[in-house]
């Protein structure tokens, strides 16, 4: 018996990277596009913004959207569009950097703690428990008050609060993965601790950590707005979406655009990051591959098999009698 798998089904090299991702994950690609737009808007805010975000047009307080103020003005007569563009800087910067730093930190702590176990694990996890035992907002207030209000200190405060969440997930996954037969098999082939961590533990806990990351990102942006609202986040008048939201709430009946604009963008940003997180998770798992195109043999490469046909085809190539 020779293999019955059509050549197209398995094992050809194919484009990897962005192109493959766009083809396999249209939703994720859309999310990526949106995020790119947000980032560009933030970076190019000085170019794109029609007005200075801090400039007050005293005669146009709470002005409706018009040709001069495309998205209206706020209670101090500041241009909402300009503030939104500049606000993207603060919100995205704080959201992305906090999520990224606590993801890396929390995962590292969780993996090491979970894999080494015993004393190290007990000590590390009790410290994490202690951090999590304090209500998040109290801890945030405490750190923010000590460090003083600034965007950087907001990131530090939020990182301290969020890191234990990543630690939990990473540790739990590590405890599961270290029991997996493939880790035992790797040990039986003489793989040492660093190799097992890098090759087997980390890649296999990537999916849940990434998913948590996309959820946490939303929480961070919202937490940042809460901190700004309490006057200990990025200090006013620095524009941030959260700050705009909390200020705009007071005028919701007279000037609804004040909260519609930042909340729609906030929702879109959060939604995009969630979609991107999901798409990345699916994309990086060879078991969850979609039909289009061809396959590559790289670790993070794509392997695609016609859906539905895939299992039957692959298994159809049953074991051949020994060819000697």
């Amino acid at each position: 018996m020779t293999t019955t798998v059509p050549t197209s089904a398995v094992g050809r090299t194919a484009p990897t990277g962005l192109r493959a991702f766009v083809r396999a994950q249209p939703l994720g690609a859309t999310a990526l596009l949106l995020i790119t737009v947000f980032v560009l808007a933030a970076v190019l805010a000085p170019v794109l913004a029609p007005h200075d975000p801090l400039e007050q047009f005293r005669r146009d307080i709470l002005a409706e959207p018009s040709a001069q103020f495309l998205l209206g003005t706020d209670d101090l007569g500041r241009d909402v569009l300009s503030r939104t563009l500049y606000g993207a800087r603060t919100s995205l910067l704080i959201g992305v950097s906090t999520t990224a730093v606590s993801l890396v930190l929390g995962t590292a702590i969780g993996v090491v703690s979970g894999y080494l176990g015993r004393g190290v694990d007990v000590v590390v996890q009790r410290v994490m428990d202690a951090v999590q035992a304090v209500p998040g907002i109290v801890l945030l207030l405490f750190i923010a008050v000590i460090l003083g209000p600034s965007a950087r200190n907001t990131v530090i405060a939020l990182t301290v609060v969020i890191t234990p969440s990543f630690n939990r997930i990473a540790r739990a996954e590590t405890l599961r993965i270290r029991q997996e037969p493939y880790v035992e098999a790797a040990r039986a082939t003489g793989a040492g601790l660093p190799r097992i961590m890098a090759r087997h533990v980390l890649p296999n806990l990537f999916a849940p950590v990434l998913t948590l990351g996309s959820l946490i990102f939303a929480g961070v942006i919202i937490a940042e707005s809460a901190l700004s609202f309490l006057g200990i986040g990025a200090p006013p008048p620095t524009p941030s979406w959260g700050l705009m939201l909390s200020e705009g709430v007071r005028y919701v009946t007279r000037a609804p655009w004040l909260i519609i604009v930042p909340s729609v963008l906030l929702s879109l940003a959060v939604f995009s990051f969630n979609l991107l997180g999901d798409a990345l998770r699916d994309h990086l798992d060879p078991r969850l591959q979609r039909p289009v195109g061809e396959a590559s043999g790289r670790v993070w490469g794509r392997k695609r098999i016609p859906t539905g046909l895939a299992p039957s085809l692959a298994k159809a190539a049953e074991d051949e009698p020994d060819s000697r």
Partner: protein
Amino acid sequence: MPSPPLLEVDDLQVRFPTPAGPIDAVSGVSFSVSPGETVAVVGESGSGKSVSALAVLGLLGAGRVAGGSVRFRGEELVGAAPDRLRRLRGADIAMIFQNPMSSLDPLFTVGDQVAEALREHRRTPRRTAKARAVELLREVGLPDPERRVRSYPHELSGGQQQRVMIAIGLACEPALLICDEPTTALDVTVEAQILDLLRRVQRDHGTALLFITHDMGVVSELADRVLVMYAGRVVEHGSVAEVLGAPGNPYTRALIDSIPTPATPRDVPMPAIAGSVPHASDMPSGCRFHPRCPRVHDRCATEPPLHDIGPGRASRCWLHAAGTAGSTVAGVRGVG
């Protein structure tokens, strides 16, 4: 055995901590494997077969070797430096496991995983390792290895996955390959192919096999010598022809009688050993098999030693003791 043994396990005792105190999963187990030889270890689930094998590699996890010795090419492995053991594993002693699907990392191509062993032990450059992986996959009979080398584990059938595991095991040409029920998760036809493959590998490379199984059919097909384990102890060992042909121990006899044959009557219950293997925390006193033994008698209240009942052959039963008639279990000669 004419040549000095490759692996010598002597009076091995493996202890696991439990909330109720330490228990011995394996005690007083001794055996040896000579170069190029196939030794099968049989027994029911929970008899300590796998634990003994893992102890050889120092992969016990929570358990530890509480006594005895494991010597590989004369080198003591019990208490050896972890790094020394790590360098032996995969390079000189390789192991393949029961469930090939979960023993392969789902995120990496099979080629990657075969190459990993080479890169770990031989510092083989990436390209060379890839090429060698293709060769190894061809050797274990994976069809179209140039293409399959880039397949992920889930794209292969169980038999193909086990072939990949064997390729990983063979990557560094180990002197000893430990197979922990490598065919239990596979279809019978695939099982036959895998056994064929192992036989061929052994012939071509002179690899010694330590083969753990609960299938007497596999033992008779593959092994030179067999070790029968029950409840953490060796109850009988000897050449396959002798042990299967004329079992000395009532337990071995009962195992062989449990194999259904076309002649097994259909209208009566299948022959089986009543009860199950006692848990290590609740070991019966005396002979560990006596609660289930059809030939239990007064002396079974104390544990019997291994009695030599022939050249290279021993059985743990009072029936062989002086004053007891017959050196094999009376009335049950003849092949099962």
